[in-house]
């Protein structure tokens, strides 16, 4: 997911990070010795101000919402503890595979066996109709700000926006995307027909107690998609009673792509009725309170060592606190059990109160018996911040980011980055070592390819760029750009502005590394950094006005396709204005990579993709920077799955 919405969530991208502990055993007894919480059943976490955008699982697509959803709703399958690629059954009784018959041999039919006797918070029992309705409603209520494209793509095949309305508007000419009024004006027969198609693709069978999905193409990561917050199962009757769609095919268009206030006016956006371990007690403007679901249905641990029955923490208070110093003070005073740093820039401050350190393997050492905090360091993450070139900078209505708009030493032309030499020069001028050492506090590793390190398709031996002033200069000299009087780019110089969202010190540092190194190569080359307030940043970004932008991506599903698609066609590809011929080269590789089931063949396809990406450098791939977590020593059971949105409170307890 691209973290959207608030400034605050943008700041956290890839800096706070989500961590993976591969083998964290139970913490040793002396670990928390002498550190006791005043109130062992209440957990207080202080996070950066912001809070959830909505609690409607069909539309939530930000980590603050995800944190709530993953604790109040359950999903058909769930991650096996910290392992993001292994699944355990949750609301389903088994994870569908080809072997157990859950996935058909051609990979086009996926059937989930649904668990009996699971009750929603309101007391009603969950049925297969509820499950099927949840996903039908999801598809039909999407809009481009929702995570539903993750389901639309496998069920309908790749379309222009991967949104359900593309079926009525395949080229996007009618502008139906996000446009409810436009949709309502469509032929009612076509609308009902589309809804019926959706229902025919997601079928509940109450006799067999199953829900079956009919895919448009084989899709390796399909089952994994259900493990995250967009897989949360809702009760059908409750949705209808709380201002949501009731399943009637004649009316679905009235609920399409709701706006933020519509979401929060309606019950489903504000209230919660899930099957999860926590209930929503209160959602205030600066804090959110969860209380334990005493009748939680789990009687057999999901994985060995997982808890059963009612959660140990009876109350979880999530506070949204703007000021880092205030959060840190609450931690020192013992009033908060866990806090979020503003960025890696705050780690040295927190370290002052740290007495124990746990590493990637879950091995903990005690550094100072008297200090109250424990830190989990040097962890794997599922997100990365990169720097993207805009091939076709929008100049409509003027564009200050590219100065004069010409090669005259005081600007760049709108298609400046269509010259591959310029892109390569930028790539050679980035200093990964100093980025990892200073900005990521030494916890990070340069990205090899668009996909995450170690993921299928990632090739550590493949080509990648490294800091090289000479090559940077050479590429700039090789540029074909000329000024009006025929002087070369090298002799003329250029000036452009890198915009980043205000407050994000990490992105500012990235921009300044480029600025410093490029101007060191040639003083005529001026790359300026400018902070933009969030709405302005969003406007410039969405309006494709930023010549060179720095943005992060958090993986939605643990699969390279989530990266290859996003980086060449989806969220970023579209904003980069990549020329069609380049897109056409990437597209077959992206699509065949997704359809291919055999990992060896997929690796080969991605190898080719990586080579093409390296040669064309549509973006400078930076580094996967480690996340840290800081908490009180009395917090037990902590581990992180990098695809969780913050914490899964069910597994935590306090001593």
């Amino acid at each position, binding site marked *: 997911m691209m973290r959207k919405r608030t400034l605050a969530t943008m700041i956290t991208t890839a800096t706070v990070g989500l961590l993976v502990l591969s083998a964290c055993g139970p913490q040793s007894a002396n670990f928390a010795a002498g550190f006791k919480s005043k109130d062992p059943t209440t957990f207080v976490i202080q996070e950066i101000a912001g809070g959830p955008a909505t609690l409607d699982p069909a539309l939530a697509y930000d980590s603050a919402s995800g944190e709530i959803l993953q604790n109040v709703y359950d999903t058909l399958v769930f991650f096996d503890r910290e392992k993001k690629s292994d699944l355990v059954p949750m609301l389903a009784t088994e994870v569908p595979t080809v072997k157990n018959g859950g996935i058909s041999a051609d990979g086009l039919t996926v059937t989930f066996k649904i668990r009996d006797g699971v009750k929603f918070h309101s007391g009603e029992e969950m049925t297969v109709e509820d499950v099927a309705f949840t996903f039908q409603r999801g598809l039909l209520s999407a809009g481009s700000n929702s995570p539903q494209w993750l389901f639309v793509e496998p069920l309908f095949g790749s379309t222009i926006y991967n949104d359900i309305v593309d079926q009525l508007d395949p080229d996007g000419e009618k502008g139906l995307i996000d446009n409810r009024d436009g949709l309502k004006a469509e032929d009612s027969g076509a609308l009902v027909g589309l809804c019926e198609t959706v229902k025919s693709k997601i079928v509940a069978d109450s006799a067999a107690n199953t829900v079956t999905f009919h895919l448009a193409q084989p899709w390796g990561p399909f089952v994994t998609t259900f493990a995250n917050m967009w897989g949360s199962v809702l009760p059908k009757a409750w949705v209808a009673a709380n201002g949501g769609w009731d399943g009637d095919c004649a009316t679905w268009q009235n609920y399409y792509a709701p706006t933020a206030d519509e979401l929060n006016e309606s019950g489903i956006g504000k209230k919660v009725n899930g099957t999860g371990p926590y209930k929503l007690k209160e959602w205030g403007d600066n804090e959110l309170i969860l209380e334990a679901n005493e009748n939680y249905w789990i009687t057999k641990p999901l994985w060995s060592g997982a808890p059963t029955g009612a959660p140990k923490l009876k109350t979880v208070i999530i506070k949204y606190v703007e000021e*880092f*110093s205030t959060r*840190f*003070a609450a931690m020192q005073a013992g009033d908060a059990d866990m806090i979020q740093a*503003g960025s*890696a*820039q*705050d*780690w*040295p*401050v927190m370290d*002052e109160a740290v007495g124990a350190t746990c590493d990637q393997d879950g091995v903990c050492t005690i550094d100072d018996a008297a200090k109250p905090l424990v830190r989990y360091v040097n962890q794997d993450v599922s997100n990365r911040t990169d720097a993207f070139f805009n091939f076709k900078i929008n100049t409509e209505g003027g564009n*200050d980011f590219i100065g004069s708009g010409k090669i005259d030493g005081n600007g760049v032309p709108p298609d400046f980055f269509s010259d591959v030499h310029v892109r390569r020069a930028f790539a050679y001028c980035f200093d990964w070592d*100093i*980025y990892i*050492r*200073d*900005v990521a*506090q030494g916890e990070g590793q340069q990205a090899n390819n668009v996909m995450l390190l170690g993921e299928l398709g990632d090739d550590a031996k493949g080509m990648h760029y490294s800091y090289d002033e000479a090559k940077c200069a050479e590429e700039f000299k090789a540029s074909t750009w000329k000024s009006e009087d025929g002087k070369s780019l090298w002799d003329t110089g250029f000036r452009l502005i890198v915009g980043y969202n*205000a*407050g994000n*010190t990490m992105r*500012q*540092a990235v921009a*300044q*590394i480029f600025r*410093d190194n490029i*101007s*060191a190569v040639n*003083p005529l080359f001026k790359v300026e950094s*400018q*902070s*933009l*307030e969030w*709405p*302005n940043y969003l406007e410039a970004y969405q309006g494709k006005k930023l010549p060179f932008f720095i943005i992060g991506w958090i993986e939605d599903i643990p699969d390279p396709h989530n990266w290859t698609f996003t980086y060449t066609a989806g969220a970023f590809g579209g904003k980069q204005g990549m020329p069609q011929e380049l897109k056409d080269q990437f597209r077959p590789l992206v699509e065949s990579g997704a359809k291919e089931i055999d990992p060896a063949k997929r690796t080969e396809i991605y190898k080719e993709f990586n080579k093409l990406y390296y040669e064309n450098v549509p973006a400078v791939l930076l580094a996967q920077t480690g996340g840290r977590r800081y908490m009180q020593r009395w917090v037990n059971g902590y581990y992180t799955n990098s695809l969780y949105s913050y914490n899964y409170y069910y597994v935590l307890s306090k001593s």
Partner: protein
Amino acid sequence: MKSASESMTPLSEEAIPLREIGKLERFLGPEFYRIFRGVFTNPLSVIGISLILFFILVAVFAPFIIPPVKNADPFMIPRDGYAAAPLPPGTKWLRRPPELPFWYTPLTGSDEWVHIFGTSSGAWDIFYGLVWGTRTAIIVGVIIEGVTLLIGIIIGAVSAFYGGWIDEVLMRITEIFMAFPFIFAALTLSAVLTPRLGKGIWPPTIAIIAFGWMSYARLIRGDILSIRERDYIMAARVVGVSDLRILFKHIVPNAIYPTLVLASMDIGTLVISFAALSFLGIGTEVGYADWGQVISFARNYIGVFSKYWYIIVYPGIVLVLFVLGWNLVGDALRDIMDPKMRGNVRR
């Protein structure tokens, strides 16, 4: 019993002897001369003036105190890398240090730049930020105070001089601008202006001016009202001197002093208003040489004061001295201009 004549002192002894009027006094005029003398003879105000002079000198000679890094915008504070943890004073400057100024080697005996006051979080050099920030402070202080005063004086003077409905309208407008708490109003206006003008010194500068002139207008209006009816003004009117000439030639110069006192004291606090807006994220670009920025860099590190004291103490001292300087001068001016002390030139 002494005679009456004996007990009375002769008139001639009581009378003030004719004073020699110096060139300076003739040049400045009696009123200004009195102020001038007062300010330069009061020890506290001499300290204040020295402080202000010191800051002006620092601002003027900033490029000689610490030259800008080659090819870089001099108003952007240079960074020695991007590290989060502040570096203590005296740490060697490793990455792209500025050129050595003339005074450095003779004074320190070294030919390597060090971070004289350390760096703040993000490896920004504090010394550079404070020296070049002095320039920003003086420039911004002069612009803001100058424009604010001008607006205040014009509105106050016109209002008082013409009276009637003009006075009524202008004073209502003044009241409206005063109806908002300063920080709220300045915050809002800079937030509105930033998308238009871009981040930088202008949005906060304009916002502070827009919501800062009212007290001057009110003050000068009051003072003019008391002068307006004096004989010499009446005389000028009778002679047929034009309104504007009377207002700006005769009235304003005589009523302006209390307003100037207030203005001089306000220059110091302007810097603080700037810092407050920086704290709220509405100030200059991150890294711009402005004291508010330098203080803001310390924001998250104040929590470990014992270890990173230098990131707040040095900028703190600079701010206090600057405000103190203007306050001392302002205080002295107020004492001098207190009507009860008028005429005591010889003191």
